[in-house]
């Protein structure tokens, strides 16, 4: 067969430059079916390689270049295309913590101590508070962190639609779920304001599905994850925890069906300071609930663990007094808080002096002890003797760590005065610091 390529190309060019309808191309080409057109569009969007099933199965051998990095927005908390959630009991400071995080993104300032990867447009949808309360919460954070209205103009949007906003999903009497008004409204606002992060607070109010129905809750979450993927945005849904003892970092404490927490990739928990922690940090029992810790509950896409992030709740006067209410309101916000370091300022020399003293024992021949009832033989007192800046809680923590690590070895001995067998501490010299 002899082909005149020149003629073919000229003919195509003439048609292309003339009165030619590109849509007709598909009709003209019978070999080009629906799947091929889909594939072409997917290739253009960088989504897929050829596939005969529509599953977009890819050959890993073709992945010569690394995929683009994940679109992190704030620390390990918010990421484009991912669903985040913060689990906490009511009244712990969930909303205060989240609003500070949203303001970090909107102002490009690390107000929560987390790195802001890129400034982002934020939409807060409060389904719990009315507009005035929402404004008070935002204002409290703005006053405390010295943020002006121009700093957030066109970067932070909010609404408190109440019932008028609808739900993401609703269930009819037959238990069938259907898409609600909120989903469409949300999509329109995301497009209209070019939103990068949507915060829906709280999750339980975004739907009217029975909250223990895993399969239905899964559909609600799917609406959010689809939005995140479609518009390349981060979605955050703070969530109440179930009743029980607060346990930092336990993502399984989310209220209702577990499918919500399962679907959210970036889950953190917020917990008030415990009595034990307050003793270690030297915080009065009456003040400990002003300190809250943020733990990675279930971070599916990064390595978990790590130290908790601490925040302090701060009451902020809004200066909105009137004749009737001259003092105006005081509303909470948060600021990062650094707990005192138990070990930070103790060098090896000092630590070894403490251990030598503990090993030598008391002048009456008794040994020091790590038991809570030891009183006069308490080993933690040796720590405060050499490091008077340490609180009792910190000193106890140091002894506890040494016992746990085998530096201090509890063992029985005979009390030289009473001749009774009691427990006391000796030092494993091979494990002393610097050995």
């Amino acid at each position, binding site marked *: *067969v*002899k*082909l*005149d*390529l*020149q003629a*073919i*190309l000229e*003919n*195509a*060019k003439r*048609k*292309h430059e003339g009165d*030619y309808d*590109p849509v007709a*191309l598909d009709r*003209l*080409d019978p*070999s*080009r079916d629906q799947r*091929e057109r889909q*594939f*072409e569009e997917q*290739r*253009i969007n*960088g989504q897929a390689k*050829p596939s005969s099933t529509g599953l977009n199965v890819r050959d890993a051998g073709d992945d010569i270049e690394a995929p683009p990095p994940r679109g992190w927005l704030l620390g390990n908390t918010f990421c484009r295309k991912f669903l985040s959630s913060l689990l906490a009991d009511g009244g712990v400071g969930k909303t205060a913590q989240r609003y500070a995080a949203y303001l970090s993104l909107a102002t490009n300032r690390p107000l929560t101590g987390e790195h802001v990867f890129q400034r982002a447009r934020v939409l807060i949808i409060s389904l719990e508070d009315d507009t005035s309360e929402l404004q008070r919460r935002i204002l409290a954070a703005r006053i405390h962190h010295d943020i002006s209205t121009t700093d957030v103009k066109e970067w932070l949007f909010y609404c408190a639609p109440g019932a008028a906003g609808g739900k993401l999903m609703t269930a009819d009497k037959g238990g069938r779920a259907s898409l609600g008004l909120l989903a469409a409204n949300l999509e329109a606002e995301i497009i209209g304001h070019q939103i990068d992060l949507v915060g829906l607070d709280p999750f339980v109010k975004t739907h009217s599905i029975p909250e223990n129905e895993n399969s239905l809750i899964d559909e609600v979450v799917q609406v959010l994850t689809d939005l995140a993927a479609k518009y390349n945005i981060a979605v955050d849904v703070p969530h109440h925890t179930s009743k029980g003892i607060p346990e930092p970092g336990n993502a399984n404490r989310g209220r209702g069906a577990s499918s919500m927490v399962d679907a959210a990739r970036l889950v953190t928990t917020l917990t008030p300071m415990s009595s034990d922690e307050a003793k270690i940090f030297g915080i009065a029992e009456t003040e400990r609930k002003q300190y809250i810790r943020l733990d990675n509950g279930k971070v599916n896409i990064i390595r978990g663990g790590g130290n908790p992030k601490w925040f302090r709740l701060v009451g902020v006067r809004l200066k909105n007094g009137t004749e009737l209410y001259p003092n105006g309101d005081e509303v909470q916000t948060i600021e990062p808080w650094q707990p005192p370091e138990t070990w930070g300022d103790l060098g090896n020399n000092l630590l070894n002096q403490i251990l030598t003293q503990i090993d030598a024992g008391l002048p009456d021949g008794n040994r020091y002890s790590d038991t809570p009832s030891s009183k006069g033989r308490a080993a933690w007192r040796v720590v405060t003797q050499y490091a008077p800046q340490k609180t009792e809680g910190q000193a106890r923590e140091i002894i506890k760590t040494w016992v746990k690590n085998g530096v201090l070895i509890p063992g029985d001995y005979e009390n030289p005065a009473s001749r009774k067998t009691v427990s006391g501490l000796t030092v494993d010299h091979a494990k002393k610091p610097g050995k």
Partner: protein
Amino acid sequence: MTSDINLQTQSPDLESRITRQLELLALRSFELADRVAAGELQFLDAVDVAFDSAVASGLADLVGYDVIQVVLAATFEKVRP
């Protein structure tokens, strides 16, 4: 510019079918080149799409990869970086 193609089967309709498919490939490539010019697509991505389309439709196997290259070179000439 002419091209000799060795075919296993000498079907009377084959020449016109190949001509039509090549013309369609050229037309589609012109369209993709327009999108490159408009900044909607990267040059290499657009060429890949056209090339893969020629492969997927069986045209490349029929006429050979050199012919496909000639068509793509001509149609993307104006937007080549």
